């Protein structure tokens, strides 16, 4: 009998899950996708894959997919299916009405890292040219916005300094607030290869994760700090570097400002950051801090990889600066095997960041307040642009609650599930007069929407993604969009309906426009990417096929900057009522809030979110493994099953956030990073008690309405 699954065609494309951005061959039979095979020529993955990219693709054809546009006058009414033209005309008319009544700045938009560079670009263009303001944000706001701020402040570029393969030349790998074996598994495989060859590993993480000890991995030093104390610990590492004169004076004198270094040295070298002082404060042995600092500083090649455990704090941006400072002080930049590298969460979150989907900058992180930059966009787009920064996503919600922000166009985001302090977010949406959601599924946010525009998955459109190593790869259409239009086509229609006339025949023309207006992308084109496979920015006349390692001879601003990184404890504190600290993270088989992976067979590996708690804390509360517990914070309470785990120490509990019904963000707070408003997801004071009532919900709720993030 012939194999009914035997592929007839294959299309090379890029995985849309994590920021590794693996190349895949999507194989089809007729109009069905039957297999995803890792592409051996993919420069990010070299033929490797994880169980999400490899197996979790069936969501694309799930019965829950939104296949028709719909509108309603109020959120209490049922949805009414309408044509694309009617939905778009209605959405545009509502936005125009709101602007007439409440002012130009009363509406805004959010783009998604689930979408292509071209779509993210169009979304910020829609807001800037179509709405006439800068109220545009993207989901990096709630994950890696501090990366952009912190790395730009120190190194001059808000992106990874290296390519992934650079780790194969590292002698010491410092992982801070990341768990690559779960979150970025294909990169983790590469890292493990280097560890097997003898590289030393330092892990800074409150939990004893697989990155601390698992097959092929054993950290030389694990610093299990208390959540919320990153900056204190990193300053203590710097203290050792300064006091023991482990810094690279020649590098600092050549590449940085020596007086600035002296200023920094005076701060971190002070007694305040002595490991004997900081150690007890952060819950880490002082000698372990010293050992880690010596190991990192002596390299000879030491590389930093970090994740949301650094950024999602009230001092998230400061924590990123600490990493930049440390690398500068030890001369660990500008060559293979070193660097500072954010492990980006989503397939295209780097693209969302560097292509101007922010309220304060255009592409290339150039300020909207800069008239020269603004002039180039005004000349290309043919209209005057707002010269003031717009509202950031959390501030849009604050303004909505205050009654001054009334409408949003949301592309592929689910703020109700993914943003902190869910009650506040819902209150904001209830205040808005028109919420337009463009998504592939109904989400928690569509419950508060007035216009629903069907989204297209990354398997249904042409475009590009930029991964965590700045690599721009092609996304290719494997099947036709289920609802007839790709996301970029929808946004083009929205712009035209708003009265701003634009036309593109193909997304390649959008990348051409990006290249004309964005220095780092100046040499990019579909032709180039098709010819060489993928291209890392900056790509220009000096680097016509892209750049693997940044900062080799100079920094973007010439010299790099040491920033002063004083430790300021978070306002979120444990109390008698909430004596435990909750931190959150991901698991290998599921992806973020699970919209896609929960609609695949991957639910067999992770059917529910659980609360990890140590034996002592569980026994103190009469909680046994598998018990239902109520987890409460000062803003809310949720119910989960408990799992007794040696991975968390006393005083610390941990959960994932893949299931909508877990409602993890019903208990996270309004606190956020000082510079970017990135939420402090990683520190919430909580209490755990045995649940009085067992929730009536399925543990394998693959049909649950969820959301992308």
């Amino acid at each position, binding site marked *: 009998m012939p194999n009914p699954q035997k592929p007839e065609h294959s299309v090379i494309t890029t995985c849309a899950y994590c920021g590794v951005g693996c190349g895949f061959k999507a194989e089809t039979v007729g109009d069905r996708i039957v297999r995803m095979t890792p592409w051996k020529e993919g420069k990010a993955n070299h033929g490797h894959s994880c169980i999400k990219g490899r197996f979790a693709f069936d969501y694309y054809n799930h019965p829950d997919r939104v296949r028709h546009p719909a509108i309603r006058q109020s959120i209490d009414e049922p949805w009414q299916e309408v044509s694309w033209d009617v939905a778009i005309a209605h959405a545009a008319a509502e936005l125009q009405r709101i602007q007439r009544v409440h002012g130009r*700045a009363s509406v805004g938009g959010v783009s998604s890292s689930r979408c292509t560079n071209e779509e993210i670009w169009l979304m910020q263009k829609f807001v800037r040219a179509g709405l006439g303001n800068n*109220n545009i944000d993207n989901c990096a706001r709630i994950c890696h916005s501090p990366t952009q701020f912190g790395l730009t*402040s120190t190194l001059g570029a808000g992106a990874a300094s290296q390519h992934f393969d650079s780790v194969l030349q590292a002698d010491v790998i410092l992982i801070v607030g990341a768990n690559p074996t779960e979150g970025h598994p294909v990169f983790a495989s590469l890292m493990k290869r280097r560890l097997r060859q003898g590289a030393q590993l330092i892990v800074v993480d409150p939990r004893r994760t697989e990155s601390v000890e698992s097959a092929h991995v054993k950290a030389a030093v694990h610093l299990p700090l208390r959540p919320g104390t990153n900056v204190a610990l990193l300053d203590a590492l710097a203290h050792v570097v300064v006091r023991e004169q482990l810094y690279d004076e020649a590098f600092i004198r050549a590449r940085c*400002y*020596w*007086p*600035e270094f002296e*200023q920094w040295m005076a*701060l971190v070298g002070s007694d305040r950051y002595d490991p004997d002082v900081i150690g007890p404060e952060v819950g880490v042995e002082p000698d372990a801090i010293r050992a880690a600092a010596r190991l990192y500083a002596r390299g000879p090649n030491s590389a930093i990889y970090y994740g949301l455990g650094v950024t999602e704090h*009230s*001092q998230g*941006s*400061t924590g990123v600066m600490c990493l930049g400072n440390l690398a500068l002080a030890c001369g660990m930049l500008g060559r293979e095997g070193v660097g500072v590298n954010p492990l980006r969460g989503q397939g295209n979150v780097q693209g969302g960041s560097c292509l101007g989907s922010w*309220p*304060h900058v255009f592409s290339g992180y150039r*300020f909207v*307040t*800069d*008239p*020269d*930059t603004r002039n180039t966009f005004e000349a290309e787009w043919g209209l005057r642009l707002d010269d*003031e*920064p*717009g*509202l*950031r996503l959390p*501030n849009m919600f*604050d*303004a909505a*609650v*205050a*009654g*001054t*922000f009334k409408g949003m166009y949301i592309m592929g985001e689910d703020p109700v599930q993914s943003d902190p302090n869910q009650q506040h977010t819902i209150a904001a949406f209830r205040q808005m007069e028109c919420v337009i959601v463009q998504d592939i599924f109904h989400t928690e946010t569509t419950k508060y929407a007035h216009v629903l525009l069907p989204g297209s998955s990354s398997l249904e459109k042409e475009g590009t993604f930029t991964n965590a190593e700045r690599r721009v790869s092609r996304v290719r259409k494997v099947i036709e969009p289920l609802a007839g239009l790709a996301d970029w086509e929808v946004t083009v229609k929205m712009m035209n309906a708003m009265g701003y006339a634009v036309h593109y025949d193909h997304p390649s023309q959008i990348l051409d426009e990006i290249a004309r207006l964005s220095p780092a992308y100046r040499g990019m084109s579909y032709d180039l990417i098709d010819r060489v496979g993928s291209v890392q920015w900056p790509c220009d006349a000096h680097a016509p096929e892209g750049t693997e390692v940044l900062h080799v001879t100079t920094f973007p601003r010439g*010299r790099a*900057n040491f*920033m*002063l990184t*004083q430790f*300021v404890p978070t*306002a979120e504190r444990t109390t008698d009522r909430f004596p435990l600290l909750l931190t959150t993270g991901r698991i290998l088989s599921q992806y973020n809030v699970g919209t896609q992976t929960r609609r695949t067979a991957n639910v067999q590996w992770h059917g529910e979110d659980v609360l990890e708690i140590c034996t002592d804390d569980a026994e103190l509360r009469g909680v046994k493994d598998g018990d239902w517990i109520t987890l409460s914070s000062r803003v809310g309470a949720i119910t989960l099953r408990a799992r007794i785990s040696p991975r968390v120490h006393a005083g610390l509990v941990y959960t994932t956030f893949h299931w909508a019904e877990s409602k993890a963000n019903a208990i996270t707070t*309004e606190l*956020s990073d*000082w*510079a*970017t*408003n990135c939420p402090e997801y990683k520190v919430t004071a909580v209490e755990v008690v045995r649940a009085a009532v067992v929730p009536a919900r399925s543990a394998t709720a693959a049909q649950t309405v969820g959301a992308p993030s």
Partner: protein
Amino acid sequence: MSGIVASGMVMDPERLVLMANQIGDFFAPYPPGPREEGIRNHLRTYWDPRMRAGLRALIAEGGVGLYPHVIAAAVLLDEPLRERKGYYGPPKPPEI
């Protein structure tokens, strides 16, 4: 948060004060001058004009709860239009 928002304010005053003081905390170790410049630049570059106006309104009413160096920095926002610069980044590094 109080949940009480004055008419025309873009957000809760207590949240504005909290956010402004957080910025003040970061720049606190910088010497006087660059410290205020850093705060001013951050507010100018990252805050929507309605948020800045809200902050200045709070200062006009006495600035209760705001750090003195944040108030001093916010005053620097009242620059004449002709002095507006395109770049408002972190404090400039000291002369070499």
